[in-house]
């Protein structure tokens, strides 16, 4: 190592240390411009009528390809919904093929590692296995992380600008990640009316019970303050339209063959209400998140790019 490199790494280490020291509090919104699309609006890409993989390929291409999100050597976390011990056909979890395709593309874009996890509702090993996501991710070259031990996997963070969720235990991998790709599945939800991009954040935190107890919609809106996703992909290939989020019988499921992609977590949820057939006002956390400045909920300021796969 020559002197220059030594100095460089020294400076980098010092900077990293400084950043880490400051991390226990979530900094104010630093990357706001990124979600605003430059002109005060947001862009959502909608793709339909293809396999989950084909739709993703089409959609990500419209957003500039995976290389626009993942730079070589970066640590990537992909967060699907793996909440339930259900099969892919039961649509309670994100489509495993979609998750695998994202992992593959992230690796192809040069990601140093791609990690996938969810803090599941059912017993985690059954969820990982029966959702098909574990096998698909491992085959694609990604790594499944466990997320069910409070002490081992979670760190406590505080977020002063949050309204209800002022402090929370968040998964270490999310803190460490350079790139965070949020891949929910669109579903009806008994408690929150609809689950998509924002509701999916509950799986990166430890204590869901606190959120259910302390104004769930506000907590869902607060969640995204802890870590903005770099990319949201809403899987609406099959959706649970009743008895959600788990789904009880086959009739609860519709095959829509849609997919939404956006940098803006609020805009994508706002458009998702149209896909599942709800009014924006039915899903209170979307307006709350827009008020907090997390993104755009106003349909007139959202540009939708519609593509056929």
């Amino acid at each position, binding site marked *: 190592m020559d002197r220059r490199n030594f100095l460089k790494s020294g400076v980098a280490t010092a900077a990293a240390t400084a950043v880490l020291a400051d991390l226990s509090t979530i900094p104010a919104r630093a990357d706001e411009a990124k979600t605003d699309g430059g002109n005060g609006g947001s862009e959502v890409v909608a793709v339909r009528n293809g396999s989950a993989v084909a739709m993703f390929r089409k959609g990500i291409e419209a957003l500039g390809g995976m290389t626009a999100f993942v730079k070589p050597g970066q640590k990537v976390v992909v967060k699907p919904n793996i909440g339930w011990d259900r099969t892919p056909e039961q649509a309670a979890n994100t489509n495993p093929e979609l998750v695998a395709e994202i992992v593959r593309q992230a690796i192809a874009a040069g990601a140093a590692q791609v990690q996938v996890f969810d803090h599941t509702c059912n017993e985690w090993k059954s969820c990982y296995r029966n959702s098909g996501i574990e096998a698909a991710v491992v085959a694609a070259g990604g790594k499944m992380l466990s997320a069910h031990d409070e002490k081992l996997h979670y760190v406590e963070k505080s977020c002063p600008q949050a309204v209800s969720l002022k402090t929370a235990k968040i998964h270490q991998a999310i803190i460490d990640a350079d790139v965070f790709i949020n891949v929910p599945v669109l579903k009806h939800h008994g408690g929150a009316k609809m689950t998509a991009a924002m509701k999916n954040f509950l799986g990166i935190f430890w204590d869901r019970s606190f959120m259910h*107890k302390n104004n769930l919609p506000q907590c869902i809106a607060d969640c995204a303050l802890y870590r903005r996703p770099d990319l949201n992909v809403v899987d609406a290939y099959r959706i649970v339209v009743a008895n959600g989020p788990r789904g009880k019988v086959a009739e609860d499921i519709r095959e829509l063959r849609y997919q939404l992609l956006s940098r803006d977590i609020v805009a994508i949820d706002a458009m998702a209400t149209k896909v599942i057939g709800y009014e924006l006002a039915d899903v209170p956390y979307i307006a709350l998140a827009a008020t907090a400045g997390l993104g755009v909920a106003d349909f007139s300021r959202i540009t939708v790019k519609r593509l056929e796969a």
Partner: protein
Amino acid sequence: MATSRLRWLRYGRVALAALTMLMLLALICHGVAAGEYWLEVQFGPAVARAWQLFSPAGAGVALLVLVLTLVLGRVYCSVLCPLGILQEFIGWLTRRRGAAPGNHPRLRYGIAVVTIVLLLFGWSLCLRLLDPASRFGGMVATLVAPWYTALYNRLFPDDMLIVRPLALPTLFIFGVLPLLLLTALVLWRRRWFCTTLCPVGTALGLVAKCTRLPLRLTDACVKCGQCQKVCPAGCIDIAQGSIDNERCLRCLKCLDACCFEAVAWGRRPAKAAAVAAAAGEKALAAGESTAKPAAAAAADARDGALPQGELTRREVLVGVAGVGAAACAGAALLRPGGVLRAGAGAGAIYPPGAGSAARFAALCTGCQLCVRNCRGNVLRAAGDGRPGLVHLVFDRGMCEFNCMRCSSICPTGALRPMTLPAKQRCRIGMAHFDPSLCIAVQDGVDCGACAEHCPTGALQMKDDGPGRRIPSLNPDLCIGCGSCEYPCPVRPVRAMRVEPVAIQVQADDPGEFFRQRREHAPLPKPAAGGDDGWLL
């Protein structure tokens, strides 16, 4: 000098015993599926299963063990019984030889007969106390598995095993106390448990008595007493030159100890005694009562005319009286409202397949296999103040909808095996909703944790005024799995609680329920709108 050939026999026994131990430890501590074969062959549970469930598999296994014993003697006790192996291990570890256990046929047969009679009446009390497999399971589950789990989770944090709570009384009832008692017995009289207390051993001993390949002393014996000294079963009588194959545990230490190769395992050479024995057996097979003296003579000849192994008339009478008294006492205790059923009531929530609180209370032997294999981490062993040897508590999880490991692994038939669809409708408890505690009702906030987790749709969030959604319970669909109680955020008392049911029944079929309801009120189709039918 002992020949290497005979020594290898003993080494083989030790190797097989170690394999059994390893597989059962792997099963109990880690849930390794291959270990289930070793669980299947446990004789006590197999007999219980065969009787309680009329299980052909259980009967087959029991028969197989009996045939094995008939051919080779009680090898089961040295290579398949985990408690026997554990006692050998304790003996080896302590290096202390207790006195040889005596021969107590009255006690032995008495215990075995009481065990069988109670089992016939559907009460596994004796197995609960004395079944070697069940007691071994209890010890490992409480004394070994927690340490194994801690170690494994430290080594492999990405593939963690479920950390199960263990109440202090549970640790003592199932772990410390039995292990201390067993160790004390080994130090006092070596394998006194196996030759005297164990009902499985006694049953096998009766078959082993007629083994085709007995262990015996040959003419080469110089009566040095080395074999008698090492025998942990006390079954060698050097003065008489005989080995009691009924009590011989086939540890094969005598083969190793004998310097003169005077201990033989196999058919005796054709001699007068053998001829007499053969005649006796032939007569027995023919079932002729007139052959009785010949059979007795043959038995005498085989056992070296050892009177102590045979029952006197008085002993038989005492035994019959004892069994009768025990059966009466058992019936009195077990009758509805009797001591043992009074406590059972519907006191706790029991695993799917238990049938009823009373049935389960009578049949469970507390082997802990279900507790160790519970994926939802809801099964608990006795010791936390609730009735029943095993029951469910929903503080760490819920009874997982797609899991039926407890009923499929239960070795005794206390839990009936079920198909998954049957298990998914088996009502083990009934949810109880307390609106006065529910935050959605009282504070008007969105929560829905209970309805979100409910796997059958028994709980739904219903509109209750503008922007208000409150839980609504349909008891017909509820299976009492605790998927509502576990996530309910209300403390200290939860708004959703599962109450025990006295008898497990099938809940309504959710598929049928929702299909019927939707025939009347179909779900709205997603609106087709916008350009080219785009939804957005």
